[in-house]
């Protein structure tokens, strides 16, 4: 009846190897909260979030206690606020951000995502207003996360939006300078943004989603590393197999927790996002997995191949384990949240250019990277354009979450604290992209977007 080895294995994965449920995220549609009066809309938004999510934290805690698996975060994602706020005709949506912040605090979640605009083809009035409100909104709130989707494979790249977002990122950094630019850690620029991503800062409740949904993000880089340690010197076939099996086990826990949370909250189950998301805790690093595969220091030649294998094996193993897989699902490479990445930057083996190559074969993109504070907005825009192109041409999600470290240069650090870690300021090319970005317009969708 009992297989003690399996039981000990599960317990070790949790206790020693840092297996956890990284987040249970409740997606909530706010379409029924639109109003031509801003105060009415905000009251409806607050009430709906509090009503839908009132038991979210308690259920998360109960499941954690009963199954013995840590559930690190409980979060909420909402319909892109640019759509919800537009009817109110207001000139600034900071009050909406404050409403989201209060609602998040009332129900006890640590982040609420969805201060979002989807502008891959162009702006509506609401989109324009929201994007302009982002710097202040993120500075005056604690728990609100924001995202802007500037490109899709079907639509191409909105280079006007790309130009704008470079400026917005700089403004956001400046407005929160002295608070270690924390505001920039809550802003993501996407290409091909998923509608059901449970991770912050890019989570929003997409247009095609139902009234309310439960999405779960698992994680467990430590378990993958531990599994690989048992196979030192083994060939790549074996390595891929070990990662697949570990990913299966991790995802099964996510599926169990998602179904249980869905049942107890009486909310439909959406997806399990099988992402390997590192934290800066010891033993929870993606870079260390790549180094375990035989790369001396993350960023050295072979890193992209190792990451490609890891990302693919995680997906293959996880797909079998869940009835619905979605979100970002892959390996994350957020520099400041991965102690191994930070060490690699410090050693000089990991550069921005190598990170860009790595984004071609994994989830997210240029994530949680601090750059010199005097980096021009056009250069930031050009970095966004590069990442968007990778996403658009390869039909995958890519994103940029970079933090201009005001007053700091290469060699300095930005300290975010907690899960967000600390970021060494990385070098950015000194050559100008200004004339390129000033052109504006749209980069057309690639030929392979015509799939019909």
């Amino acid at each position, binding site marked *: 009846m009992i297989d*003690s080895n399996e039981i000990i294995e*599960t*317990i070790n994965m949790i206790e020693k190897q840092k297996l956890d449920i990284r987040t249970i995220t409740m997606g909530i549609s706010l379409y029924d909260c639109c109003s031509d009066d801003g105060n009415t809309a905000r009251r409806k938004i607050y009430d709906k979030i509090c009503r839908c999510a009132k038991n979210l934290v308690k259920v998360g805690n109960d499941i954690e206690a*009963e199954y013995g698996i840590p559930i690190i975060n409980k979060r909420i994602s909402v319909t892109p606020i640019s759509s919800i706020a537009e009817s109110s005709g207001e000139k600034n949506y900071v009050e909406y951000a404050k409403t989201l912040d209060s609602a998040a605090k009332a129900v006890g979640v640590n982040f609420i995502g969805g201060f979002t605009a989807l502008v891959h083809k162009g702006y509506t009035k609401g989109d324009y207003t929201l994007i302009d409100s982002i710097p202040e909104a993120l500075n005056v709130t604690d728990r609100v996360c924001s995202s802007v989707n500037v490109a899709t494979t079907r639509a191409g790249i909105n280079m006007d939006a790309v130009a704008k977002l470079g400026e917005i990122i700089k403004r956001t950094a400046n407005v929160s300078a002295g608070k270690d630019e924390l505001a920039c850690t809550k802003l993501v620029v996407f290409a091909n943004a998923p509608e059901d991503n449970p991770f912050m800062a890019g989570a929003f409740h997409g247009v095609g989603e139902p009234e309310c949904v439960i999405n779960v993000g698992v994680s467990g880089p430590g378990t993958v590393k531990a599994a690989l340690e048992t196979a030192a010197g083994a060939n790549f076939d074996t390595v891929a197999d070990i990662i697949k099996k570990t990913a299966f086990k991790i995802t*099964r826990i996510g599926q*169990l927790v998602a179904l249980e949370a869905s049942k107890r909250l009486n909310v439909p189950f959406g997806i399990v996002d099988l992402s390997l998301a590192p934290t800066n805790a010891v033993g929870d690093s993606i870079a260390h997995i790549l180094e375990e595969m035989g790369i001396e220091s993350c960023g050295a030649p072979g890193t992209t191949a190792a990451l490609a294998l890891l990302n693919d094996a995680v997906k293959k193993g996880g797909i079998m384990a869940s009835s619905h897989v979605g979100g970002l699902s892959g390996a994350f490479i957020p520099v400041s949240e991965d102690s191994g990445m930070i060490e690699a930057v410090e050693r000089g083996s990991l550069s921005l250019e190598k990170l860009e190559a790595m984004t071609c074969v994994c989830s997210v993109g240029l994530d949680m990277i601090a750059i010199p504070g005097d980096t021009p907005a056009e250069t930031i825009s050009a970095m966004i354009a590069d990442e968007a192109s990778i996403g658009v041409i390869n039909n995958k999600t890519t994103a940029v979450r970079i933090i201009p470290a005001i007053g700091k240069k290469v060699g300095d650090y930005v300290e975010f604290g907690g899960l967000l870690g600390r970021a060494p300021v990385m070098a950015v090319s000194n050559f100008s992209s200004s004339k390129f970005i000033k052109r504006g317009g749209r980069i057309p969708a690639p030929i392979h977007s015509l799939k019909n």
Partner: protein
Amino acid sequence: MKAVITAVGCDRIGIIAGISKVLAEKNVNIMDITQTIMQEYFTMTMLVDISKASVQFNELKESIEEEGRELKISILIQREEIFKSMHRI
């Protein structure tokens, strides 16, 4: 509804007796036990039926953990689905 109790620590007299007493008090039936002692290290896993337990899960968990503190061993109690879901296709 079944749960798995795992106890790990230094071997001493009364571990299984101590845990069984708590379970009996709370109307929890023991369905299976495996246990090994390696040198002085004691590891036990127990499959129990909590469907007729006289207390809620949280209270059962606290009682078991309290017993663990008295016996100076680490005891976990978890619903069995977490193990079944991970190790069975």
